[in-house]
């Protein structure tokens, strides 16, 4: 049918995965029919999902073996509970024995699931350590961020631990959600209902300009697929090596410089002004135009 191409932002986790990897290649681990659901949600009389909001499996992507996890942002905001977190951690453990070409994490999460917050917090710290173990074994872990919940809380940290981060401009990445900041610090600090402002603080074009997202793509599943394939090809030739002292001292210097340069910044426009001749036009630019201008600036 002559509609739009399939939006990554709007698709469910299962749809994203099925369109991202080679057709029919997904084999799911701990699939919904195992009904590994959250007893904690049940205890609080909240609705359950048969996969606890995350799909984990193996697939091929342009012929390469990958392990994949996709969080369902529409189920409890993609939040991490005990089972949900254990599935992602188990997938990363599996990578150590199965040695795929890459692990893809389709992150769409507000962070810890409040209904089982303690379990979620520990689970995320386990995922963080597992991501590092997988990378230390020479297997890249790619984060794809383009869903309605973005990547926040602990999953925002996990995203930044990944080898590469692919974002769409609709994707958002941060630590504390704007609503939390507004609730605690007041609307003057952060007006969470000003969606354009929220986007300028957390959105894909800001994260790409800061270099935190390594690729910015259109909000289309095939665009994410193309990006993932290109990363796989690149890392197949040069597997990741764990960060050494010099590299981390370099990052330290870079972040110190960022903090100093933008010591008073409170809006993405101030970051863009550093790179783009017409910073005010950045929000209106197409992804292609944005990438060209960013490339020229670099």
């Amino acid at each position, binding site marked *: *049918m*002559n*509609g*739009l191409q399939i939006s990554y932002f*709007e698709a469910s986790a299962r749809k994203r995965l099925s369109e991202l990897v080679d057709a029919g290649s997904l084999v799911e681990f701990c699939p919904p029919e195992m009904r590994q659901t959250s007893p904690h949600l049940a205890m609080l009389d909240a609705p359950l999902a048969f996969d606890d909001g995350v799909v984990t499996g193996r697939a091929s992507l342009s012929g390469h073996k990958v392990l994949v996890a996709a969080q369902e942002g529409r189920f409890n905001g993609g939040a991490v509970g005990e089972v949900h977190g254990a599935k992602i951690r188990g997938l990363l453990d599996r990578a150590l024995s199965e040695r795929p070409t890459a692990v893809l994490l389709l992150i769409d999460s507000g962070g810890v699931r409040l209904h089982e917050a303690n379990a979620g917090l520990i689970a995320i710290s386990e995922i963080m350590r597992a991501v590092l173990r997988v990378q230390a074994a020479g297997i890249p872990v790619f984060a794809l961020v383009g869903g309605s919940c973005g990547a926040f809380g602990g999953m925002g940290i996990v995203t930044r631990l990944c080898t590469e981060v692919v974002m769409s401009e609709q994707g958002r990445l941060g630590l504390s959600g704007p609503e939390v900041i507004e609730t605690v610090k007041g609307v003057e600090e952060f007006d969470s209902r000003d*969606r*354009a402002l929220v986007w300028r603080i957390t959105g894909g074009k800001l994260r790409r300009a800061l270099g935190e997202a390594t690729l910015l793509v259109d909000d289309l599943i095939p665009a994410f697929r193309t990006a993932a394939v290109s990363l796989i090809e690149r890392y197949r030739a040069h597997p990741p090596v764990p960060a050494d002292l010099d590299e981390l001292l370099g990052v330290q210097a870079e972040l110190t410089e960022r903090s100093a340069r933008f010591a008073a910044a409170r809006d993405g426009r101030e970051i863009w002004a550093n790179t783009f001749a017409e910073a005010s036009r950045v*929000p*209106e630019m*197409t992804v292609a135009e944005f990438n060209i201008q960013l490339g020229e600036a670099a």
Partner: protein
Amino acid sequence: MNAPDTSAKRWDNLARNRAARLARAERLASGCIVPSEQIVQLLEAVIEPGDRVCIEGNNQKQADFLARSLIKTDPSRLRDLHLVQSVLALPEHIDLIERGQVSRIDFSFSGPQAARLARLVESRKITIGAIHTYLELFARYFVDLTPRVALIAAQAADREGNLYTGPNTEDTPAIVEATAFKGGIVIAQVNEIVDKLPRVDIPADWVDFVVRAPTPHYIEPLFTRDPAQITEIQVLMGMIAIKGLYAEYGIKRLNHGIGFDTAAIELLLPTYAADLGLKGKICTHWALNPHPTLIPAIEAGFVESVHSFGSEVGMERYTAARSDIFFTGADGSMRSNRAFCQAAGHYACDLFIGSTLQIDLQGNSSTATKGRIAGFGGAPNMGADARGRRHASPAWLRAGREGRGDIAMPRGQKLVVQIVETFREHMEPAFVERLDAWDLAATANMELPPVMIYGEDMTHIITEEGIANLLLCRTPQEREQAIRGVAGYTPVGMARDPRMVENLRDRGIIRRPEDMGIRKSDATRDLLAARSVKDLVYASGGLYDPPRQFRNW
């Protein structure tokens, strides 16, 4: 023959009274320009007790500064007023009633103030003359409800008092015409006073005073629907409307109500309808505000002409750049006109489609709910057969044949369609045995239950279950079962006679999606030509400038 006795009867009382009012105001103005800090004194000088006053406003622009100023006047001097105006939508409109300055109101729509108004009516603080349609109220301006003083809103004035109302011209010409030519006083609030206007929408000699408002008049972006909020069910109903109705009847000239259901139809035109080969065959001529969701259809070449009741915030540059489609002046900006567009919607369109809150078993529909006196604005004019119509079109003729059979005098009928999901949010059924309007009429002492569209005008109902064609029903029983037959799992729907409903389906009176060759699983949001406001901006080539609350970038 004796000479006429001119002393016995004077024929220029209105003019002399007008002159007296202007004389009282003379010291307050320099030429026609009144400083904003003098506005309260001006109102007190020109308005007299018992006057019919119109404070311009619609569901779009509002003469808000003048309304705010009116409630600062001395209630002992300005009292017993009769408000004759399109809407009572600002808090100040109701404040004026609460201050005891108003004794009677005739209006069309009260939207956000509906609950406050209902309380005032119940406590007998105010008498409602009638709740009109817009066109009906405008008509009465020229018969028995002519304003004595009109307080209007314009974008700009020049120093002579010529007004530029631009894209948001809306009700202004109708109000000013009635007031100025019947000895009344016209006061305009403007956003700016300039040396040269882009064009003159209202000539200076129809305007008595101009005041520059401290803040620009408020305009509500009422016709913007964020495509992100359109549901799969609305996509499905949109597909049903296009394939089962628009294509079937060849609907070219039409009006859409506001809402996500109709926004879905607009966004399906360049995709679903184009795939069905319907470009150029349906939806070419519109009586419609510049809906942002119509942009993709316009860009796809679906649309030939759009005349508008009002404008829409953020659509100014787009409409100006598409002057082949929209009605624009020599200066390049659009001009709307609610009265003409209402007439166009009533007489020159073959179809009206809109949504509602309740439909009863006769097909009467209403958005009225208990405790709220809201009115319906223009919908009843759109959603009524134009019995005076004398020009034919294939769609109109076919509807007439279906409704009257072949034996009667050949005559067409307008297609009046309601599109609703069987349950609204919170599982409120859209189909009811009895409209809430009856209870409202009883508690508010209204002579008529507030019905938006009468059952006798309603020709089709679309729900997620399919289409009921009420034109083809031959008895009240058939009509009732046709309605029950698309009422889903509401109590009304569950009480259907399954055999009769199947019979109606065999006769094509009820058509299910599968009867029309529509696969429900095709109903996904990926079929929409825009999935977000940003998509609309891109579709417009950057010409559409959405208001802040619709921006997430």
